[in-house]
């Protein structure tokens, strides 16, 4: 297939959410779904390198008054609008206090120019197994609010990924917001390993929440990045972490066995499976040490 030229791509730019949803519904009925444009930090890379598979897009930049920014609900839940950029959230000191793992991810997703343009919702919908913000959101039990012309529904991020680069969103639906319930800051842990801190795609990453009570871990969320076809929770590892009081040799081995039951990372252009597994294991141990109350 020859590359699609930029001049051959059609884009609509609605200025109201209702109009956008009507366009998505109409395109879906015609069997020619529209792909949404938000920060374009992924789509334009595809286009510039001739990898574009779509010719028809719907640009959301006219919907900033309805879908931009973020807000705090009375119970401390963070609501992130579909067009909220990384830099917009990073400008809010409360976000750093409440969700340090999310602001760390946002600050490492790319350099200044990418932070100013990229969106959390775009990162979720792009469905890359090497995403940075999406795994932090998954570890925080975030939910995805989807809307279509005729319906609205909420899908837990834990049920959002259905396969490699595939999501639960129907073609006539749009992510309108993400919601992140409150979580103690002390239990949050985020690390990404790439060739350098900024502007590097993640070779292996961890987003974890380890809740401690009376010297032992009582609850665990561990999300793996670049370790499988999608970002995913490592449930055997989460179970193995419950009851852990610290890191000794036997504990380390047990955690590694549990990890290997969950995650069998592959060799690819960015890294090797064995390296990924070993680094991930060490980051699990680091998470235990650093969140220990």
């Amino acid at each position, binding site marked *: 297939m020859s590359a699609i*030229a930029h001049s051959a*791509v059609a884009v609509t*730019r609605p200025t109201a959410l209702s109009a956008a949803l009507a366009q998505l519904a109409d395109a879906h009925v015609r069997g020619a779904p529209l792909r949404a444009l938000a920060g*374009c930090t992924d789509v334009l890379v595809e286009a510039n*390198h001739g990898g574009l598979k779509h010719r028809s897009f719907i640009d959301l930049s006219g919907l900033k008054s309805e879908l931009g920014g973020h807000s705090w609900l009375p119970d401390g839940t963070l609501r992130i609008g579909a067009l909220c950029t990384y830099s917009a959230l990073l400008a809010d000191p409360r976000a750093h206090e409440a969700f340090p793992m999310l602001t760390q991810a946002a600050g490492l997703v790319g350099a200044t120019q990418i932070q100013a343009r990229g969106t959390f919702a775009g990162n979720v919908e792009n469905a890359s197994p090497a995403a940075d913000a999406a795994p932090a959101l998954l570890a925080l039990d975030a939910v995805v609010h989807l809307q279509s012309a005729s319906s609205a529904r909420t899908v837990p991020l834990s049920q959002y990924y259905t396969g490699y680069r595939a999501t639960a969103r129907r073609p006539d639906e749009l992510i309108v917001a993400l919601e992140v319930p409150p979580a103690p800051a002390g239990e949050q842990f985020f690390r990404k390993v790439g060739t350098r*801190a*900024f502007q590097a795609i993640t070779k292996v990453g961890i987003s974890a929440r380890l809740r401690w009570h009376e010297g032992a871990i009582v609850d665990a969320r561990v999300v793996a990045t670049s370790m499988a076809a999608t970002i995913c929770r490592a449930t055997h590892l989460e179970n193995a972490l419950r009851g852990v009081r610290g890191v000794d040799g036997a504990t380390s081995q047990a955690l590694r066995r549990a990890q290997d039951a969950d995650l069998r990372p592959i060799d690819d252009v960015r890294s090797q499976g064995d390296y990924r597994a070993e680094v991930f294991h060490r980051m699990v141990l680091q998470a235990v040490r650093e969140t220990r109350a």
Partner: protein
Amino acid sequence: MTVSHAHTHLADAVPSQEVRFTLNGAPQKLSVRPFRRLLDVLRTDLDLPGTKEGCGEGECGACSVLIDGEPINACLVPVIQCEGTTIVTVEGLAGHDALHPVQQAFMQHGGAQCGICTPGMVVTAAWMRDQKLGPEAIREKLAGNICRCTGYSAIVNSVAAALGTPDGTPDSTPDGAAPGGSDA
């Protein structure tokens, strides 16, 4: 090093759409194909070749311009997303009679070598100066602007000099003595 696919098959082209924005202080009204990159529209349609193309994938920052006051990569912006925005390119930084303080500092401290990364560096540094960021922020905030010539010390020194002078007067500190400016 252009990696984009700028070739146009007229038979495939979609209709032009009207896009309005403010560019370097002046209103612009363009009739353009919506998905064309802001980078190409600036360089080709608007005769502003100061914004450079390096990687074409948002990694190198050579195409940095300010949209609504924030530095962005013009290679990643379909022009239709510029509707209603305010854009400043490197050409818009200097006044009629005087260079921008960042440009002055780059001259004074040898911040440019081959020159391809320089416009993007200058734009990002001008934003840092607008934000009143200190020299300690340089290496993080400039991480999206990559240079293959200088080894960065001269650039960091230039930006540090520009940031260290809130009154707009270029710093006359010798190279290496600027705060945060030494690699050694």
